[in-house]
């Protein structure tokens, strides 16, 4: 088959288009592309809504004007000092968590895996809770949480290594570590008086309440490196879905790829935990939601997953802040918002999970 004939065949396949830049060609799935665009528009709309609401209400015009730099002084203060950094933080947190979940589920080939299940969140939580309960300076908590998360990820990886990594072994060891650290947290909670444990309990549910421009910068820099890396790994991730033997036989350096995937996935969730504390549910479910809507994981679907995670966390944060008279931490709400939708998807879509 000649190149042009092949191209014609691809073109005539439903919803696929080929994009050429000189010697490089991309196959674009139009359906995925339109899903990405729609989700992006929804995300921007949700972000606008998030910046309008609050004790000082703003109109759409004021929000847009202020973000674009043509707003009035009062709106500028509220937007640039308070709401814009928070909104950006939430969007990036959601994206980071969703990507982390998608990468872990692919690298270990188990749909129930997420960073929280194999102990990464618990590592950060134990470190932070211990720190809070022993009255250490609060400023160190983000760094501590990051270190806690990354050391648990490395520990799980190293303990699972026996010449190679098996997904089942990694999960079991991850669960073991998770239970161990969880017991440590419970132990601390039972040991200390209730007044102290309350502020520690508050940390264990992630929140975006204190986010500022420093958080935005930290997340933006890390995502600027990690997103391209993750997208570049998507092809390998797809090959790995065929099973280790097949992947190896088509020439994929499987252990190196898996190490890279796990490193990227852990780093993504560790940054999110450092900024906001452990926010549950997003990493586990956003990839499922994305796959149920858009099909098996490709680079395009991966970007869609990222946006689904961002939109999901954005909506959760709006509800957490404004639905009740008291403002709740967003980590409490993610499950409350996402679960019904996820259960509905599960009910409607049958075998695609």
């Amino acid at each position, binding site marked *: 088959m000649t190149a042009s004939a092949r191209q014609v065949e691809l073109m005539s396949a439903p919803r696929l288009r080929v994009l050429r830049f000189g010697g490089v060609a991309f196959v674009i799935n139009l359906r995925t592309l339109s899903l990405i665009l729609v989700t992006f528009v929804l995300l921007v709309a949700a972000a606008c809504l998030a910046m309008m609401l609050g004790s000082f209400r703003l109109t759409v015009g004021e929000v847009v004007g202020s973000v674009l730099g043509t707003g009035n002084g009062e709106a500028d203060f509220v937007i640039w000092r308070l709401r814009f950094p928070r909104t950006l933080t939430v969007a990036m947190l959601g994206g980071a968590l969703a990507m982390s979940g998608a990468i872990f589920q692919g690298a270990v080939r188990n749909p*129930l895996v997420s960073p929280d299940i194999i102990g990464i969140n618990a590592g950060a939580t134990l470190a932070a809770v211990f720190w809070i309960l022993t009255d250490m300076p609060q400023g160190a908590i983000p760094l501590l949480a990051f270190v806690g998360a990354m050391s648990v990820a490395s520990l799980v990886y190293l303990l699972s290594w026996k010449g190679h990594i098996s997904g089942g072994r990694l999960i079991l060891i991850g669960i073991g570590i998770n239970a161990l650290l969880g017991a440590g947290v419970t132990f601390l909670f039972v040991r200390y008086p209730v007044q102290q444990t309350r502020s520690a309990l508050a940390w264990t549910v992630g929140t975006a309440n204190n986010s500022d421009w420093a958080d935005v910068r930290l997340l933006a820099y890390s995502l600027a490196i990690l997103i391209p890396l993750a997208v570049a790994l998507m092809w390998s991730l797809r090959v790995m879905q065929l099973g280790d033997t097949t992947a190896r036989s088509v020439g994929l350096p499987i252990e190196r790829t898996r190490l890279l995937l796990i490193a990227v996935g852990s780093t993504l969730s560790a940054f999110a935990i450092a900024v906001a504390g452990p926010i549950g549910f997003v990493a586990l479910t956003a990839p499922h939601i994305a796959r149920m809507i858009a099909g098996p994981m490709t680079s395009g679907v991966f970007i869609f997953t990222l946006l689904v995670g961002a939109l999901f966390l954005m909506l959760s944060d709006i509800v957490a802040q404004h639905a009740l008279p008291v403002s709740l931490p967003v980590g409490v709400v993610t499950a409350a918002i996402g679960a019904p939708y996820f259960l509905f998807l599960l009910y409607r879509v049958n*075998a695609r999970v």
Partner: protein
Amino acid sequence: MTTIKSAGRRSASVRLGRRPALVVIVVLLLFVALLSLRIGSADVSNGDALDALFSFDDSSYDQVVVRSLRVPRTLIGLGVGAALAVAGAAMQAVTRNPLAGPSIFGINGGAAFLLTLAVFVGNLTHPMQFIWFAFIGGFGAAALVYAVASAGAGGPSPVKLALAGVIVSSLLGSWMTAMLLLDEQAFEVVRFWLAGSLAGRDVEVFWWVMPFMIVGVVGIALMSNQLNILALGEDTARALGMRIRLVRFTITFLVVLMTGAAVAAAGPIGFVGLAVPHIVRVVTGPDYRWIVLYCVLVGPLLLLTADVAGRVVARPSELQVGIVTALTGAPFLIFLARQRRIAEL
């Protein structure tokens, strides 16, 4: 093919050890049960512990302690340990996922949620009041999970069941955390229950949960052949003429019954149901008839050992058994996962 061969060889080599190992485990279990009667904030002699069982003298302070505190505690530990371990083995067979434990249907989450709600709204404080709410909450959550997973064409596939369970658990968990954040009093009451403990239960608690546990354990034991077939995979099971939906539903129902009773009696003890089947497989190989039998004995052994250890390490107070099982069981699970190829499910 090589894996099948080597698995066959391995199970042939361990078959010799299965019966002797059973005897050792029974002896250990009796020993630990005796320790559980003796050890506590006030230690009791062997003689008093046995007299309290067989020739009770209510003028002896030690014997009264054994009768009223340690006997219920030990009985509940035996029942809860067996129920959780057997339920865990059954769930791993049904879902064919090593991540599955009895809590996968959101039973722990449901129990904890309804209990917290009851404490939040109704200011309960006594453990006897807790068991009703825990049991109903656990059962309700499991029913919801099963309903969602089995709705739509295709029925309840293992992945759908597991996903629905995780989702419902985290949903209820988040609502529970919200209540605990809003109400310090409720947190004070519930946090000890949430750690999982056998302490301070009346013997009535045992009588109340025992029937559920017996039905569950015996039922699963009778169905262990079906577990073996399910573990081969859905296609094979269907090819062998199994009515998969019915079998799955029955097993699930029994698991929910046992786990609900266990949570009601002792709080959410998460690790036993997950780890014991994996530990047991090292000796039994993949045959569920043996796995279930071993689970009935090793589950209580692990749980009672943990409970006794919890009373010793933190004298004069004690460490909740849920904490100890995780702290001791987890390293063991990690060790096993590294030592052997954990039986692929």
